[in-house]
């Protein structure tokens, strides 16, 4: 009996505007608690919200980038519930007329086919404050710096059918959002959060199973792991004849399991009604056109262009365009150096490996795209061997020094002068008589050994192909 997994994802994205959604408090991260608050975001009596124009504009950009339809007339609603991190005990959000709806993101399904995931809605709302529970204490503490930050809620239809697809969706969504430069998209900082809804049903069954909400997943891999666990748990329950309880479960990353949230959740009656302190917003063609014109080239389009203009493979294009910073770095380099495939290999290989190891972004790396171009040119013109270039690269990435300077300082220039190399070759041949005999007897490995000896003698600076040629010439006698 085959079971199908049905997943929907809800992503909350904190917008990187300078100020909050409804007041002028700064949105800077990591400041002293309650130092970025005012009567409005604290919900003090008598305070009133006024919508941040930039937050609204960013929302439209995201909606367009996700191929959504935009409402002509947008209104906000109050979502009423009591919690200490919610200053007014209601959240200004959107209910029945969200800013945008019916969009999509294309992902790659497990069988490598293209699959369209419907984005049911993208709407704007305000974030709550931060509630902290000091261990072992009978009280909680609240910091309202985050209260009132602008959040976009991006909800999919239950179109995802595996944790793998969910992961791919998140990676692609993040990629698009980073291109728009409307958010840090950083799960660790909390500027991107993800909740999931998951149910299972027998394959080919039309009716959806009972869905469970999953929370507390703090990385994309965590989302995938949580969904994998939960899918298994639900299938196992169903096989045992147990009913799935409709509930919210938390991902326990230590134990790698989902656990039920211990709360008497009263039936959620949010008593939504239109926010009377905010007026409606008409989204006319002018606003939409302006937002659309300001959209950057998005990842998919950029990947297509990389394939066509640079002749890169689909795989390479996808890797390079996955993160906007990497794509931009690569393009800067490609403007200065005429072999895009080579540049691509270095970026995707040594550079990205180093970034992962050091856990930094390409923006933080000190070597410029221009320096990379210079380095690659030095390999092409024989100044550096491939191996030497890697050492120079390492130092350049660490220090930001120009490759030319590193080469000069370390005296790393490759030796290509034939006379110089021939001198060394002759000396090595004289010293390694046994290996020479092996070579003449047909052992190919002997040649490699001799090349190695020459390289060692020249401290790695000899141009290997020249060495090879001269050795063969001298051995041929």
């Amino acid at each position, binding site marked *: 009996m085959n079971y199908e997994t049905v997943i929907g994802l809800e992503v909350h994205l904190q917008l990187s505007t300078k100020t909050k959604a409804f007041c002028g408090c700064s949105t800077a991260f990591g400041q002293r608690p309650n130092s970025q608050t005012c009567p409005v975001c604290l919900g*003090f009596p*008598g305070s009133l919200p*006024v919508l941040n124009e930039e937050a609204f504009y960013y929302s439209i950009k995201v909606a367009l980038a996700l191929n959504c339809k935009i409402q002509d007339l947008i209104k906000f609603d109050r979502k*009423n519930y009591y919690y200490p991190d919610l200053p*007014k005990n209601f959240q200004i959000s959107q209910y029945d007329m969200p800013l945008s709806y019916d969009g999509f993101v294309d992902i790659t399904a497990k069988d490598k086919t293209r699959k369209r995931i419907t984005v049911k809605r993208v709407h704007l709302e305000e974030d709550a404050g931060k509630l902290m529970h000091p261990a072992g204490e009978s009280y909680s503490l609240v910091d309202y710096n985050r209260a009132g930050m602008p959040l976009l809620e991006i909800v999919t239809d239950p179109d995802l059918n595996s944790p793998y697809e969910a992961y791919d969706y998140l990676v692609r969504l993040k990629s698009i959002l980073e291109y728009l430069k409307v958010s840090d998209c950083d799960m660790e900082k909390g500027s991107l959060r993800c909740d999931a809804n998951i149910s299972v049903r027998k394959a080919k069954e039309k009716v959806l199973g009972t869905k469970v909400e999953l929370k507390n997943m703090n990385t994309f891999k965590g989302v995938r792991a949580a969904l994998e666990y939960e899918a298994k748990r639900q299938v196992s329950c169903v096989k045992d004849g147990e009913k799935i309880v409709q509930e919210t479960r938390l991902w326990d990353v230590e134990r790698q399991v989902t656990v039920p949230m211990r709360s008497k959740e009263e039936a959620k*009656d949010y008593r939504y009604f239109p926010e*009377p302190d*905010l007026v409606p917003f008409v989204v006319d063609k002018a606003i939409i056109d302006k937002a659309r014109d300001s959209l950057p080239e998005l990842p998919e389009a950029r990947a297509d262009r990389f394939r066509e203009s640079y002749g890169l493979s689909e795989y390479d294009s996808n890797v390079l365009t996955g993160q906007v910073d990497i794509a931009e770095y690569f393009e800067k380099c490609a403007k200065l150096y005429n072999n895009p495939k080579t540049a691509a290999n270095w970026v995707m290989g040594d550079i990205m490996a180093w970034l992962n190891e050091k856990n930094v972004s390409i923006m933080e790396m000190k070597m410029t795209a221009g320096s990379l171009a210079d380095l690659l040119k030095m390999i092409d013109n024989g100044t550096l061997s491939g191996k030497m270039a890697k050492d120079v690269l390492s130092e350049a990435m660490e220090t930001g020094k120009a490759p030319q300077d590193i080469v000069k300082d370390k005296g790393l220039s490759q030796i290509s002068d034939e006379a110089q190399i021939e001198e060394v070759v002759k000396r090595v041949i004289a010293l390694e008589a046994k290996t020479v005999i092996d070579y003449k007897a047909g052992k190919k490995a002997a040649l490699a050994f001799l090349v190695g000896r020459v390289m060692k003698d020249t401290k790695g600076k000899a141009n290997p192909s020249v060495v090879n040629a001269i050795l063969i010439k001298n051995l041929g006698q």
Partner: protein
Amino acid sequence: MDKLHSYTAHALMKMIDKEALDPSTIRSDVLDRIERLDGKIKAFVLVNRPDTSAPASGKQDTSGRLSGIPVLIKDNICVKDEYTTCSSRILEGFRPPYDATVVKKLRCEGAVLIGKANMDEFAFGSSCETSCYGPTRNPWALDRIPGGSSGGSAAAVAGDCTIMALGSDTGGSIRQPASLCGVVGLKPTYGRVSRYGLIAFASSLDQIGPITKDVEDSALLLGVIAGHDEMDSTSVDMPVPDYTKALVKDVKGLSIGVPKEYFVKGLDKDVEECVRGAIEKLKGLGARIVGISLPHTEYAVSAYYIIGPAEASSNLARFDGVQYAFRDRDSRDLIDMYIKTRSKGFGNEAKRRILLGTYCLSSGYYDAYYLKALKVRTRIKEDFDKAFGSCDVIITPTSPTPAFRIGEKSGDPLGMYLSDVYTIPANLAGLPAISIPCGFSKEGLPIGLQILGRHFGEETIFRTAYTFEQNTDFHRKRPAL
């Protein structure tokens, strides 16, 4: 100069301009009167006395439009670092860290903030009886209500315990107490005056407005507090005219609509007589009287008592003991704290409205109640749009009866609600409306006349009101205290 407390602001300003008056003497005279009389009237919950230890600072700045004029602020309007409680226990000890926009404007014009006025708790009421401090008394008859919810503001003006006052009006809370206390109360067009700093009752209905001794003072004070505010999304960006220029004693060519639905059973005979008399007076002065119909009038109270409490139930959710004011200290945990704080902190009327409002918004009832009320509201608005096609202003009684006795209606919430029947429609439609004195009942209790105008038609209202006022002397009458 004695008896400064009995003057109007415009008269005092003339004397100040002529340098015949030291503004600080106005304040001391008013404070004396408060000292002598507020024990009986109980209009004040806070009196601001100047710091007498500070040396006199020399010649005062008299350049503001209200220099030295004492203005009493209703206790639901935030004054920075001063107790602002909405006459509710749940806001005990609360001192807002900011001024309401209208308070900022008053300060800019040199007004003296003389204190905070008693009110119905959170503006829920028409009698000032739901205040946690006890009721204010009507200066005309101390055993009677002053009206509500701006009862303190109206009583203080009527009793000359302040020169001017600010109130707020959601369903009649400025006009009805003005009517019952024989003074002038104006509810501006929705959006004319900023609500930033007004502790909200019903966001789509609330407006702050002036309560004054005469129409000229009303025009003067409105001119100071009106205007666009970037802190209030619902405030309208329109220039503020000089309302004092609208004070002409002439209604020739003005057409006055009289709605038949407002003169039905339940209207007190004395009230009807005074109001009809006033209409005749205006006719005699050259106005054309037009009979009009506002067919959905009978549904206004029902619509209001859904919309108001619904919005209020949400606006009052923030009072939970977390960030400020009263918190129950006996609680086991958070939910217990919420429940105990709110149950102990709110009075009965507040609880009643919160329950009613929550119910009307709750799952399964939203369409039948809240949405339905919003649709009826459209019909009421359309009635007025149509009526103003054939008249410039509409005249009605302000209150169906003069002031009743304290305690008379407090056991009958619905009966109390029905007394708002004439004032509620203006809030639902967002229209400006004024109440001015137009006579007295046989027992000597004031009776008010309501004049409604088109959106942003305050000037026409002032013209009509001023003409009537200046051709009668009701505005000069004072209670014997």
